[in-house]
């Protein structure tokens, strides 16, 4: 299975840095989740309905990775990394 190319928005990396608070275990878990998403983005997340439209969401603990899939260019764009309580 081919990996999708990825682009990470600056805000995504900033969110992740804030969330990890220096925890290597947490960061590794998120990065491994991203590796899985790259292999099969539809399988490892769900398409958001509601007001957060046109984005995909994959949970990691109490957090959510929000990304877009561009099938044409086989690219994933990682948008945000937010707490599920950040509503």
């Amino acid at each position: 299975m081919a990996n999708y190319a990825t682009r990470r928005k600056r805000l995504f990396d900033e969110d992740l840095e804030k969330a990890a608070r220096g925890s290597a275990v947490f960061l590794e878990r998120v990065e491994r989740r991203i590796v899985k998403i790259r292999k099969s983005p539809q399988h490892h997340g769900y398409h958001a309905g509601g007001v957060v439209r046109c984005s995909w969401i994959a949970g990691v603990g109490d957090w959510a990775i929000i990304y877009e899939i561009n099938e044409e260019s086989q690219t994933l764009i990682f948008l945000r990394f937010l707490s599920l309580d950040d509503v």
Partner: protein
Amino acid sequence: MPKISEIKVVRSPWRPISEADRRRAALVVANLISRLDFVTDWRLQKAYFLAEVWSIEERLRRLSAVDFASWAHGPWSLHVREAEEALEAQEIVSRVRHPAKRRPEAEFLQIKKAEKLPPLEESDSEFLDSFAAQVKFVDGEKLTKITKLTLPFQATRRDALVNLDRYLQTLREKHERFVNSPRVARLVAEAKAE
């Protein structure tokens, strides 16, 4: 000597699980043992608990129906222990003694007859592969620390059962609220415009 009628029988806190759930627990136990190195009873219990929690957090579903209790030394499950014993009785799993890190030697579990195991569903197999890759080199002590930091363990008082079904329900509800949050929509739009 007390009469039988005078003896108070304390109800077991462990929920009985169905035969299908027992088989499922045994399958998960065997697959964890086969994917991790140097698995002691202790490390198996912690690894199984963490796999359950991560399955809920990443896939929004349980890996199996086993219960865990919150003990001083971290989560522990009678169902996992029973699954392990059933596998030993079927000679699928055996114990070997090896020198250990903190003791002269310890008993490690190993798969004896992998061909006797029914295959796992592809998505479960993939999940356990990824899980094992992350905890394979984490020793029992560190694994215990990680399990104790999980939200469902922290939310449970000592000696009580960890309510993993409620945790799953809570996370599903959080995701529901999350995708309907105007604040989240605004934060996502901000990133899209970047």
